[in-house]
């Protein structure tokens, strides 16, 4: 499988890596935060036998360079529209995981004519109900940021940057660099639940019962807010239930995408 590159005049001019194979109805696969085409390759490869499968590294992920400015989910949504235009895809079904689900929901709400069916798995967009521990960690992280601000650019600030971030911030935040950190803050702060009732696409929600990142409760919220949606729970599955229980996931996905 060979990768292709495409330049897109989004909020910033960006180059993205993408992959396209198979024939039939188009299906766009959107990966999660910090992931890449490789993380959803199992889905991509499976779909190529019956669909025109398309996957890309979202800017700042995989091999696609990060945009110089911090982006919002809307910027990613607009990028997908440009990407579809450039590939000559008028309308596509979508299979999305985690952060990819945010982009998919935004896209389906704003451009219903461009989106066919959606399979969302471990999708983000419903604000988490934080536990006391998480609230404390968040407060500590905010305090740490203030302290670091007062320290300026010295060695102590560097130390805080390299050590403390790992203790109090999320793993995604710790791994992100430059503008992508601000992008992450933009992304996770956005509550997409007001958009969900506007989604007209038939939507299949597939959730791992033990998902710690986007808990099953948020899947249930999505199922109640997206009008034409159905929720399937993969017992024992985590945030990556699609990979852990792929033989089940693929059958649900194909059954849903093939149905007329």
């Amino acid at each position: 499988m060979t990768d292709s590159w495409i330049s897109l005049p989004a909020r910033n001019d960006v180059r993205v890596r993408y992959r396209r194979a198979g024939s039939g109805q188009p299906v766009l696969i959107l990966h999660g935060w910090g992931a890449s085409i490789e993380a959803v390759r199992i889905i991509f490869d499976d779909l190529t036998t019956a669909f025109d499968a398309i996957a890309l590294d979202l800017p700042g992920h995989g091999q696609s360079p990060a945009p110089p400015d911090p982006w919002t989910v809307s910027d990613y949504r607009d990028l997908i529209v440009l990407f579809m235009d450039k590939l000559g895809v008028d309308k596509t079904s979508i299979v999305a995981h985690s952060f990819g689900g945010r982009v998919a929901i935004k896209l389906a709400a704003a451009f219903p004519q461009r989106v066919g069916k959606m399979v969302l798995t471990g999708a983000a967009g419903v604000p988490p109900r934080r536990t006391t521990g998480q609230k404390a960690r968040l407060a500590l992280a905010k305090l740490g940021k203030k302290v670091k601000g007062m320290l300026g650019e010295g060695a102590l600030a560097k130390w805080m940057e390299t050590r403390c971030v790992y203790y109090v911030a999320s793993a995604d935040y710790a791994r992100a660099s430059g503008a992508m950190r601000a992008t992450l803050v933009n992304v996770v702060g956005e509550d997409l639940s007001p958009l969900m009732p506007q989604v007209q696409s038939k939507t299949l929600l597939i959730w791992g019962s033990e998902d710690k990142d986007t808990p099953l409760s948020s899947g249930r919220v999505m199922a109640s807010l997206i009008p034409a949606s159905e929720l399937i729970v993969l017992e024992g599955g985590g945030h990556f239930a699609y990979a852990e229980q792929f033989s089940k996931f693929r059958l649900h996905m194909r059954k849903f995408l093939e149905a007329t």
Partner: protein
Amino acid sequence: MPNLTVAVVFGGRSVEHEVSILTAHQVLDALDVAGYKTLPVYITKEGAWYAGKPLGELSHFQSKSGIGDLPGVSRVHLSPDRSARQLVSHPHAKKGLFSRAPELWADVFLPCVHGTFGEDGTLQGLFEMADVPYSGCGVLAAALSMDKIRSKAVCRAAGLPVLDCRWTTRAAWAKDSASFISEVEKMSPYPVIVKPASLGSSIGVRRCEDARQLREGMETALVFDERVLVEPALVNFREVNCAVLGPPTQTSVCEMPSYSGDMLSFDSKYRPGGKGGAKGLAPKGAKSAIASAGMASLNRTIPAPISPELTAEAQKLAATAFEALGAEGVARVDFLLDENNKLFFNEINTVPGSLAYYLWEASGMRFDQLVTRLVDSALARHEIRRRTQFSMEANLLGAGAR
């Protein structure tokens, strides 16, 4: 369809034990997606039966700890006494004070045991005795299809192109091996292929270039089976496989498996990256390293890169073989394709790896639709059998008999 429970029987006393576990777990997932309730039924390599939901977890088979000790799993058996018509708790089943025995009712049995004691009519015989609906071949078709010598004879009689063969038994070979070798040499020049009559997975299969190799090959093959056949070896042949479903008979697209070396050995069939050759004769060593996706992961080209005419020919021959052997359910018919694009019936697998779902998917039938069809035809066949009267009410030994 909803609310039916399907018992998936897998494992078994077979060299293809592990492959069966993989097939069964794919089938369990497909049944789940199709909306059935499932009951995994696992037969150990020693032949003990266990049932219970946790057996549907593949991870339990990757650990060394005892399957029988899992909570929710219980030792069971299928009684030949048809008054039960279901799995029952084994007399030796462990009974914990607080553990609850799993629900053992099943509406249909779906055998996923490959090879001996599963694909060969024996398990089917048990289902018949117990009078439970089951999918796939009946006793005769399963037994015939498993036997390379007899299935070739039936297919030849049905007009299929079949390679010549000579066969012998362990006893006859021990008595006079020299005359068998000269019989083989009369049939065909070397190279020839030695095959155990009833083993799958290419175990014991060997290509022999001369009389010495033939003798060695025969000795090895006769370890694995009581009867062994020898065929001329085709040069530069390829394999073409086609899946068949029935009744009514329906064929899939064809596949062409890719393999290294001149024969699909156990290693190259089930161990991607395996060395092949002599190691393929050692199932003990092979069992640890089977790819997690089983047959579905074998390198293959779908559809097979052959002409539409040849594809149609393979499909027609596959359907003829399926019907001639009286097969039911899903089977995969394997052909050899020689240099002159001539097809030869090679063998039929009546419990093919992964139930050949990848061939049906490529033909427009999803796996959940395939298993639904298997369950439906199992129930239909049982209903037809039920209408057949098997015994007379009058007691011919009774007082009123004349």
